[in-house]
């Protein structure tokens, strides 16, 4: 299923939504709510191979490649991380490897999450982004092979 908006368009939407939120506690609440709606993965997906390293909680990510677009799905046992996964999936899922590789991550700073989500906080944001980019690279290589 292809997304109709471009990555930059989705990022702008998110920036607008976050502008209406206040400080970090409200942003966290927002993330918690979108996290709650993240669907569970198929049971077989919860294995070591699908784990994203670099997070205090357990994070799993799986992908499908359909019609030149990568579909991302993810889950975590921490609500905050589920929320972050949901956010990233909204931005990156349903796009081509090239679009994903070209996407910049300014929006994270613009929504005020960057400072709260450094690697030291252990919530896996950077790790998940790296993993998404890595998948894009891998699928692109497969396509051109």
């Amino acid at each position, binding site marked *: 299923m292809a997304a109709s908006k471009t990555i930059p368009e989705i990022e702008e939407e998110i920036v607008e939504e976050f502008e209406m939120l206040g400080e*970090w506690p409200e942003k966290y609440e927002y993330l918690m709510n979108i996290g709650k709606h993240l669907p569970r993965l198929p049971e077989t997906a919860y294995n070591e191979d699908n784990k994203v390293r670099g997070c*205090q909680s357990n994070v799993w990510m799986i992908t499908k490649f359909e019609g030149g677009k990568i579909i991302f799905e993810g889950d975590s046992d921490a*609500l*905050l991380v589920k929320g972050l996964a949901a956010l990233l999936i909204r931005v990156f899922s349903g796009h081509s490897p090239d679009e994903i590789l070209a996407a910049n991550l300014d929006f994270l700073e613009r929504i005020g999450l960057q400072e709260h989500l450094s690697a030291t906080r252990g919530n896996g944001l950077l790790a998940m982004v790296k993993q998404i980019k890595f998948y894009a690279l891998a699928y692109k290589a497969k396509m051109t092979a």
Partner: protein
Amino acid sequence: MMKSVANTEFNNLRINAESFDVKSIRQDFPILKTKVYGKPLVYFDNAATSQKPKAVIDRIVRFYETENANIHRGIYHLSELASDAYEGARDIVQKSINAAKREEIIFVRGATEGINLVASSWGRANLKAGDEVLISQMEHHANIVPWQLICEEKGAVLKTIPVDDSGELILEEYHKLLTQKTKIVSIVFVSNSIGTINPVKSIIGSAHKLHIPVLVDACQAAPHLSLDVQDLDCDFLVFSGHKVFAPTGIGVLYGKEKFLDAMPPYQSGGDMINTVTFQKTTFKEPPYKFEAGTPNMSGAIGLGAAIEYVHHIGRQNIHQYEQTLLKHATEKIGAIEGLKIIGTAKNRIPVIAFTVEGAHPLDIGTMLDFEGIAIRTGNHCTQPLLARFGVSATCRASLAFYNTVDEIDFFVEALAKVIKKLKD
């Protein structure tokens, strides 16, 4: 012979050594007035690092304002002041842990460096293929990884004393693991993750029957218990300044004279040498043999001031007060539904680690932060211990003598609300 330098910052302390007035004590710690998201700070992460009293902060400022110069080198007045202050701090440390000689006190960056120093310097000279190094399942990574590396280098074997379900060492297993092959035991006095106080004196006694030296990691013991290295009879002991109300970047390695004399240097360079030529260089005696380069002078002096501050309040007073905090916290926290306390040893410092069914520590810690509460979440640099308890992360509340019963009650109320919200 070094003059001892008076730390005049204690002249205006409002504390009374006979009684424990936590309200007055809190006035000594400026950071406790901080607000977080507009709420008063409730600092429950003392096992990670401690807060500093004004007396320590002022002593460091006084050093930089009136005494700062490089030590051991100058013949001028300021250098003498700096050297006296630095060496005076060494004397304070020696007295505080009842070391027999000042030469047995080495200033290092922290316990991690201290353990690395022993593993590297003592280890390289004494370990060979097939030898065994004995640590425990509850060690901090700083007391695991240096030994792993030296064992790998030398072909030695790392063995571990197991921990039972309450978080206590299984001593029968310890005695089985002590053999002719064991060359050193390196053991934590108090666990940073679960608060267990280990019976290190008898652990050392058993090792000594087989002439096996023992290193004690006293990082979490130093803030809460009295240390007496002669009574313990430990061969090495380490602790870090930043956990005992002193600055970061300073720590202590205590070693018995006979060991330090025999050990080769760890880091080399200036200040640890007698003569240097391109043909041959000779080294100083301990402690200077192990103190290469310009040391963390203000750190050492700050450490001396922190030790004196704690002494002023009184170790017994602190211990009694902390045990009442521990009892209150354990009761209240333990009563929360769905919450499991990890680490229920009979003898503990006020550290409470817990998990909650259906709520991840990361979420709990994040939401408590919004209430101004600072706890730690994660594996606390003790991944093997947490794996033993079948968890990958816990919440940890670790208290100090400036925390209060009111703070505990506030914490418990906030925690219950957070858990309810997360489970909805």
